[in-house]
């Protein structure tokens, strides 16, 4: 999987300049009306998805019984399946999907590169190394609602993001997107090497568990992990709210943006920190689910154009719906077995990614 990502990254540099040109087209029509229409459209999609998804699953449940208050909760299997198994999955899917999709949009604008993903800059490799170490060392640490593996992956992701950030801001005040990209790619390979080393010294079951974690899993089992990820996502989304207009200008180029009064350094830092935070939160919640961060932003751009004031919120809504639907497939297609949700998103996303590459070429 890492090699695939790396291969994709090699082509990132090539597509770099083209993306900037395409993102720069400014949408003329009144933005408020368009925003309203977009939000309502994608909002309805997300709401419908979230209403339908918990009704479907590997075991049939009786909806009347789910909401029957006369049966005590501890006796009501249907209600437990609905509230303990399915609801947290749907909520986690919305959160992780929205976070990864918006982080993808922001990274694509920041790096001025249509093929950038939330994992381009090494966040997922850092998170995977953290999770792997937690699984292999078998430690049980917890902090508040965080359990061991999510906490370790969050730490790994933060370390990776901090290293890349430090490297990219070392030279001057504005970030160098080239340094960002190269540092990210290098860090990805370095962490992958460490992951392989840890894998080699680990035992079988641990390696299997770690591999399974990398495939992504939304079966969180309670609302605790969701509560743990929520504050980080709230901060990240609050930061995203400042970004759209600046990103529009930034995607034309740093010089052009700064000529139009954008504080480029500040915008870049805000974009990097917010997108990394969203990615880290999503990964700690559900593992590094691939391809959401590239498929969703591009599908959304095909539908609403390239204005970040529309793309960013629409990607959040569509990303949530998309991941919930993928997870619905994951838990029903081979029931009672599950397909790891990352496998589903990769199977949909891989061909899409290739199509995008060919189309660009």
């Amino acid at each position, binding site marked *: 999987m890492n090699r695939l990502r790396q291969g994709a990254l090699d082509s990132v540099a090539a597509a770099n300049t083209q993306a900037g040109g395409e993102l720069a087209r400014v949408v003329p029509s009144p933005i408020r009306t368009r925003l309203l229409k977009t939000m309502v459209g994608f909002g309805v999609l997300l709401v419908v998805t979230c209403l339908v998804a918990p009704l479907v699953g*590997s*075991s049939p449940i009786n909806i009347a019984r789910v909401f029957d208050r006369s049966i005590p909760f*501890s006796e009501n299997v249907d209600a*437990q399946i609905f509230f303990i*198994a399915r609801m947290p999955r749907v909520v986690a899917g919305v959160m992780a999907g929205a976070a990864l999709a918006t982080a993808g949009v922001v990274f694509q604008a920041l790096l001025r590169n249509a093929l950038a993903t939330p994992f381009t800059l090494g966040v997922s490799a850092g998170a995977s190394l953290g999770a792997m170490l937690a699984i292999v060392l078998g430690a049980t640490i917890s902090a508040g609602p965080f359990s061991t593996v999510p906490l370790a992956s969050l730490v790994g992701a933060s370390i990776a993001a901090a290293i890349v950030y430090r490297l990219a801001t070392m030279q001057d005040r504005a970030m160098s997107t080239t340094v960002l990209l190269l540092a990210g790619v290098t860090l990805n390979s370095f962490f992958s090497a460490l992951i392989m080393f840890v894998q080699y010294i680990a035992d079988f079951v641990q390696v299997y*568990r770690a591999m399974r974690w990398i495939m992504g899993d939304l079966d969180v089992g309670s609302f605790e992990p969701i509560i743990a990820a929520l504050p980080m996502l709230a901060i990240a989304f609050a930061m995203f709210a400042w970004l759209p207009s600046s990103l529009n200008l930034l995607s034309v180029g740093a010089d052009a943006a700064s000529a139009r009064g954008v504080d480029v350094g500040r915008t870049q830092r805000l974009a990097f920190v917010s997108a990394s935070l969203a990615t880290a939160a999503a990964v700690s919640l559900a593992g590094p689910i691939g391809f959401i961060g590239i498929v969703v932003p591009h599908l959304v751009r095909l539908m609403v154009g390239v204005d970040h004031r529309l793309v960013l919120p629409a990607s959040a809504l569509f990303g949530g719906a998309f991941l919930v639907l993928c997870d619905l497939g994951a838990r029903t297609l081979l029931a009672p077995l*599950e397909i790891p949700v990352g496998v589903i998103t990769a199977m949909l996303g891989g061909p899409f990614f290739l199509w995008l590459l060919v189309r660009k070429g």
Partner: protein
Amino acid sequence: MAAGTKRLITVAVVALIVFWAARPVTMQSRASASRIVSLVPALTEMLFAIGAGPQVIAVSSFDEFPPQVKSLPRVGALLDPDMERILALRPDLVLSYGSQTDVQAQLARANIRVFSYRHAGLNGIFTTLKDLGAAVGRPADAERLARDIRGGLDAIQARVRGRPKPKTLLVFERDPASLRSVYVSGGVGFLHDMLGIAGGVNVFADVARESVQPSIETMLARSPDVILEVRATGLLAAADVAQAKRVWGALASVPAVKQGRIEILTGEHLVVPGPRVVQGTEAFARALHPDAFK
């Protein structure tokens, strides 16, 4: 001599040489082995149980039982066999996993006999024992051990016969603090077979796999009467039991949770399909039917 006859003789001689060179190596093998390297813990246990222990000169890095193996050299295991070390020990028989085809090919080139092993259900233990006994020249001992194992399992089965069979979730891996990364036995493999003999019904018997990662939803829907957690290593502390009960407590509607029937068993003998399966199966049976053993 006619040219035709001459050519015929040449062809016959060449054919003979070719056949001799290409004969299966195992055909010429001696009926016994005096220097055995075992890469499979289950087979090591069988060797010691049939009295071939003194012939074992090295074991895998996973071997723990019997205690005698602790002083033997380690030569790697399934994924990392140390070929150089194995060859340096000059074995005349190497017991390896069926999937270690590279190892087997290398050993064949070195003219060392290979015994190939694959995991199978409980019945696999009996066929393996028979073949292993023949390979190391102790067929009678192997047969006796097979009879003992069969007898032990039959006795357990008889002891729990007629009792209601609890629906059981047989867990062999789980994240210590949550219900994530839960792995349970499907309807194939020796753990599933052991559960059947111990008088339990596997709730994932319909899934034809050794290992299943069930979702929370399927675990709720299958509503097991007993949750049997098997751990290969570690001693069981009271805190572990309390934590397990707390973690499983999230699935309040499951009968096993309601009735507090979360049984945790530890010990490597529970997960090695060797001669100790009788002990392991009895541990299962005692956990499922405590009354039958009073």
